[in-house]
């Protein structure tokens, strides 16, 4: 019996994460990482952000963003290590570190957003 490959699932997550990362991460990073801290644009007030993140739809959006983005990272980084550094002999370790890291990130995001009061 042929061994079923989980590659298509992983690749689909990579691809979906790539789309999410391309469309929304640049604007988020520009605002959160540069424009707000450097005072180019007034940063949103705490109460406003709190109310925004309390909305279930916002939390769903943030969860999807984190989940897909970390799996995108896992897949791409795994192949960067395989091909770029040619450390194929560490295949299994890289595999578990990358996807394990992605699962950890997803669980952490789910935990933080689910328990957000």
């Amino acid at each position, binding site marked *: 019996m042929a061994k079923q490959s989980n590659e298509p699932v992983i690749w689909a997550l990579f691809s979906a994460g790539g789309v999410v*990362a391309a469309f929304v991460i640049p604007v*988020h990073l520009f605002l959160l990482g540069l424009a707000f801290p450097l005072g180019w644009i007034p940063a949103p007030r705490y109460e406003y952000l709190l109310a925004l*993140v309390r909305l279930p739809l916002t939390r769903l959006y943030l969860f999807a963003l984190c989940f897909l983005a970390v799996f995108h990272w896992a897949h791409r980084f795994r192949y960067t290590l395989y091909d770029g550094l040619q450390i194929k002999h560490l295949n299994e370790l890289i595999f578990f570190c990358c996807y394990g890291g992605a699962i950890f990130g997803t669980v952490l*995001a789910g935990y933080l957003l689910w328990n957000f009061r």
Partner: protein
Amino acid sequence: MSDTRQTTRYTEYHPRWYRSRVSTWWWLTRWPYLKFILREISSVFVAWFVMVLLLQIRALSRGPQAYAQFERWLQHPAVVLLNLIALFFVVFHAVTWFNLAPRAIAIRFRGKRVPDLWIVGTNYAAWAVISLVVAWFLVRS
């Protein structure tokens, strides 16, 4: 049958593999290779962004003081520099992603393939619209 198998021994003709050893730094030798590796490394900054976002969510849930502390952390020069580098990489990822989109999606309209430029253009237009929507939610308060 089994007798002959035991008595005859074959030495298969097996030429030695010719595989020249590729340097670990192969991707530094040509610009397209370097571009490929830079694109792959962009994923690290995607993960960095997720980490910052999770820190923000945690700070938000912990109260105004924790959030003010998080905002101060964001103002640290090293963090600003890291975010600047990260922004460069995620924009690089976005541009390479959109430019590759026509290779990944072949849309047919009335039997003809939609030109690559349209698909790329649609992606960039969507990028602009989505960025404005996200900014609209975050900037007003």
